[in-house]
């Protein structure tokens, strides 16, 4: 039974050592620029990578995490990825066109954060670009449920859309973790993660991640890599080159549809900070 379910696409994976994660994007440098159609430089830590490069080195290590002057103990960020917390995905990867900047999946190294960093997006209000959702309720994006079953996602239309979380106050953000719908592995286009000081997203807008390689979203060309949506989520490093967390109140995640025309679907967004 199992052998018959192993598609050819997975044979390449058999050559890899036991994997436990996927390399997240390199993250983007916060840029103090208003939203515009100008090319926006994204954040660059030491772990700059593209799909064509060799696997990215680890994200900022212990020294950088404390570069802001904190001497607090560092712990590996725990995203709560227990066996019961996630959904088993449909085996195999889709066979359609792959974008040129699709990254190679490698093990995600532990992301070290100061002790006390927690998901500050939990139960916070969410807004979005659509007036009416095709499925789900926006509360589902911050309810700590990372399953990807039939009723576990919020669906917007195809095309570029965004969801935005109000953290309630300015927070020192170390990382943003995003789960798009992953039961069927999907490559979503134009994933852009930004933060701002105001609800209207005009003040002090900074880009943390941008994998829009052809500027189709008209928000600037991004250098980050495309990825398959997986149960381990996409972890975006929100720290600056000096290792300091980004301070912001509002977090927005843009996504255009999937490469196969899939509508935009989100399962959960977590913002790790203090």
């Amino acid at each position, binding site marked *: 039974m199992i052998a018959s379910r*192993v598609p050819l696409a997975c044979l390449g994976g058999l050559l890899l050592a036991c994997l436990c994660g996927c390399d997240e994007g390199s993250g983007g440098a916060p840029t103090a620029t208003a939203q515009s159609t100008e090319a926006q430089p994204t954040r660059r830590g030491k772990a700059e990578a593209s799909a064509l490069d060799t696997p990215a080195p680890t994200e900022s290590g212990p020294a950088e995490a404390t570069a802001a002057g904190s001497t607090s103990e560092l712990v590996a960020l725990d995203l709560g990825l*227990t066996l019961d917390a996630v959904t088993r995905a449909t085996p195999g990867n889709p066979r359609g066109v792959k974008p040129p900047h699709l990254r190679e999946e490698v093990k995600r190294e532990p992301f070290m954060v100061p002790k006390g960093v927690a998901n500050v997006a939990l139960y916070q209000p969410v807004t979005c670009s659509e007036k009416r959702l095709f*499925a789900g309720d926006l509360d589902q994006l911050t309810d700590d449920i990372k399953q990807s079953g039939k009723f576990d996602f919020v669906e917007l239309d195809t095309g570029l859309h965004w969801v935005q979380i109000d953290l309630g106050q300015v927070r020192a953000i170390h990382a943003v973790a995003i789960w798009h719908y992953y039961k069927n592995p999907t490559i979503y286009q134009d994933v852009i993660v930004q933060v701002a000081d105001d609800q209207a997203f005009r003040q002090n807008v900074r880009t943390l991640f941008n994998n829009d390689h052809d500027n189709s979203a008209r928000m600037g060309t991004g250098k980050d890599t495309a990825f398959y949506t997986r149960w381990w989520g996409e972890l975006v490093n929100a720290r600056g080159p000096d290792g300091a967390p980004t301070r912001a109140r509002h977090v927005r995640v843009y996504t255009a549809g999937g490469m196969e025309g899939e509508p935009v679907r989100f399962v959960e967004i977590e913002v790790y900070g203090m």
Partner: protein
Amino acid sequence: MAEERLCRRDFLRRAGIACGVAALTLEERTLLAAQKAGAAPPKEDKSAALPMGKIGKLNVSRMICGGNLISGYAHSRDLVYVSRLMQEYNTEKRVLDTLELCERHGINTVLSDPWDKPRTILNRYWKERGGKIQWIVDSRPDPKDVKPKIKMAIDAGASAIYVNGGWAERLVKQGKVDALAKMVDFIQENGLPAGIGGHLLDVPVACEEAGVKADFYVKTLHSRQYWSSAAQREHDNIWCRKPAETIAFMKTVTKPWIAYKTLAAGAVNPTVGFKYALQGGADFLCVGMFDFQVAQDVKIVQGLFKRGIQRERPWRA
């Protein structure tokens, strides 16, 4: 049929032994590795209890475990095999396990009919598992002699009793609201909270007009925003035909309200359905759940309360 549940862990363990690790997909190997690494079972946050309300003297969790899954009614529209599938899956052992899971997650009350199967299971549960779950019994007393059926429920261990929805609808249609009042009186004389059920809004309307002194209502509430609600010919697909009118009327009712069929028997997203019912004025949600749904459903309800529930009807329990 083996009673053990073939969970993901078992599946991976057997798959690994039978076919060798190399034959597994990447994801299965990843999950297997996590299992071998001694991934800890999910922690239960005992501090995140379910909010509670009161029905008479009973403290009742805002989420009540529905009994159809115990009794075997699946409301599966035209999928004729689903009820049988549910009964095969929900063996006695599994139901006992589910009740235990419910209590562990803060659900302290189950609502079901008093026939043999739930009666046997609940008594086993209290005796063998030491469970404390309260039991709201769905009763169909004979209007000519209300006592036997009500006494049966009391003797079986009921914590509260209500008149079954379909039963109450029939009596209301026949103009026998006074019979409902007698049933309520007898239940209350025996020291238990007494309720009246209904799918149709006609039932609470008639009871309020007649001044029936029930302690609570059990009334369906779900939105019509699901595919099979629009079926031209009804076939076990809809239980609240007038949700807006129900919400509007229940605003005038001061008795506690247990809303059931809030997910339209599985057709509605739980977050959407629970939110709709609580915002619409329900004091309690009665939800039929499989064991694999309990944790997530409780988490959803806890989250809704933590965010704050905006509603016009005051909490009546």
